[in-house]
């Protein structure tokens, strides 16, 4: 009985070590060997009681409007990625079946994205904003930073946005075999950790 208990205990210990280390290995390999894609992001800062502070991000990925939107919204797809002229990630195809080639991630089709509302100066009523496409939600939603830096980053980004110079927050994501690993978050092309050092307190 004691041998059986010990055997099971050792098996459990092996699983306790293997699962986090296997996770680390898969992400490490993706970070080393995966193709880099850049995404526009919108940051804000929450706190996760166990895993520390992070900047919560929403990667912006938009696909062409789909004619049968009703069956489409909320569905999970394999998203084969491509890059636009500026090097930002775009959707090449969406498929229900696992792609055999290309860099892909799993994503959920969500709401429609419209062009920004442009106020008109003449007397005519405002036109309805143009439909740009449908948003594809990717599960990569957080960027962990050192305690203190995440709220600082969020505050700095927010304070810049309304009237100051344009802030372009982008995420670098490595993609390999359907796994995405966030390599870094850039503000105006500079890694956020370095950019923070240039921001006055």
């Amino acid at each position, binding site marked *: 009985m004691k041998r059986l208990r*010990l055997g*099971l205990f050792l098996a459990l210990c092996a699983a*306790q070590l293997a*699962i986090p*280390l296997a*996770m680390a290995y898969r992400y490490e390999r993706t*970070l080393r060997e995966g193709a880099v894609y850049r995404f526009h992001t919108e940051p804000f800062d929450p706190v996760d009681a*166990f*895993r520390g*502070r992070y900047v919560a991000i929403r990667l912006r990925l938009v696909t062409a409007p789909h004619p049968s939107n009703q069956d489409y919204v909320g569905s999970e797809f394999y998203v084969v990625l491509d890059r636009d002229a500026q090097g930002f990630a775009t959707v090449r195809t969406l498929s229900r079946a696992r792609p055999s080639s290309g860099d892909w991630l799993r994503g959920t089709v969500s709401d429609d994205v419209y062009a920004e509302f442009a106020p008109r100066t003449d007397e005519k009523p405002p036109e309805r904003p143009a439909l740009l496409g449908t948003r594809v939600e990717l599960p990569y939603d957080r960027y962990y930073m050192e305690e203190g830096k995440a709220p600082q980053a969020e505050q700095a980004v927010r304070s810049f946005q309304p009237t100051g110079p344009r802030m372009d927050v982008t995420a670098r994501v490595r993609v390999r075999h359907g796994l995405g690993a966030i390599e870094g978050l850039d503000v105006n092309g500079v890694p956020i950790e370095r950019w923070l050092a240039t921001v006055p307190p």
Partner: protein
Amino acid sequence: MHRPSVAWLLGELPKLVAAGVLSPEAADAVRRHYAAEDPGVGKRLATALLSVLGALLVGGGVILLLAHNWDTLSRGARAGLLTVLLVAAQGLAAFALLRRWTSLAWRESAGALQVAAVAAAVALVAQTYQVPGDLTGYYRTVLLLSLPLVYLLEAAAVSVLTWAGLVAMATTWSWRGEPEVLAWWGMATAGAPFLRILARREADSWRTALTIVVGVTALFVGGTINAGRSEWDGLWVLYGLALLGIAHALGSTGGGEAWRRRLRGPAYVGLVVLGLMLTFEWPWHGIETALPATADAGIWATAAVAVVLGVWATYQAVHLLRLREIHVGVTSLAWVVGALSYLLALAYLAPAARLFFDVWLAAVGITGLAEGWQSGKLVRANAGLLALAGLAVARFFDADVSFVVRGLAFIVVGAGFLVTNLLLVRRSRARAEVVS
């Protein structure tokens, strides 16, 4: 004193009481005798509690230190830290398993530390590699890697931690439903047998009572959240009444073991509070649609647990009524009352549904007061008074009467409490004098 023999004797007491060899009073006297004879019990309890507290503080401290997310630590250093942390905790647990099996303090604290180490390791990987996923997934991973420790180390502290983790997991529910709810029930089902093992082996120990009360509380909170967030209107009522009903029935049967005594009180208070809520109309509104069209396996699992526990509670309640334990029997019948009220609500008769609970609470209160009065049991009489007072207050809340009338009614209820207790104390004193 030879502890294993005493433990065996104490373990046999419920069977002896059930077989009629010993009266419950005689069994209690035996328990008191050995508790008084063993001065080491308090010391061992303090040592075990302090060890667990120490392990949890160390583990919590490590988690908080890692949560700082040190920029200076490379990814390789973090992986090394993770491995060292886990292996150290596993080594301590292995030492407890192989060399300190008889020491409760060692097993409990090493188990608690190992759970904290697993939680810290998974968190460290998540923050290092920006792993996506919500808290539900995090809790699920940590719980799956920790649950077997409950049985391998036979550690109540690990069991308590996993029940707390299950409650925390239930509070993080998104609306994705089925897989999360099924995973929750799967893990709850895996953790429940340990409560039975403790109840059979150490019926009168502090850790059994604590673990069972925590486990039942977690099952109530988590299961009610599962039921409440499902699309099946009113399932939470049926589940909550079933779980509290069986907890109350189990707390009222058997040979008066410590875990039963500790369980009965919270279950009774829970039933009275839930019963009072159900005497209002709002819980019954919206139960006018029966089964949801989109019921998934998660909802069916919750409903199945509610029915199984409800039938079990009813069986135990009938058994108690046959033994002329009217108050506890009527109280444990809560699920039947809930099921009948649910059917009435489905037939658009919400006012009648709430009326069932008015009648049930009145019956619980009157039988408790009457039995407490007859037997001179202050606790039972006050339990009955609590139900009656709660019912009176609830009805005065929704009655269209003036503040003067409400005030007078409150004074009458309060005076009733005081006078009944005074009379009961006098009566028991008079009885004691007659006996002496």
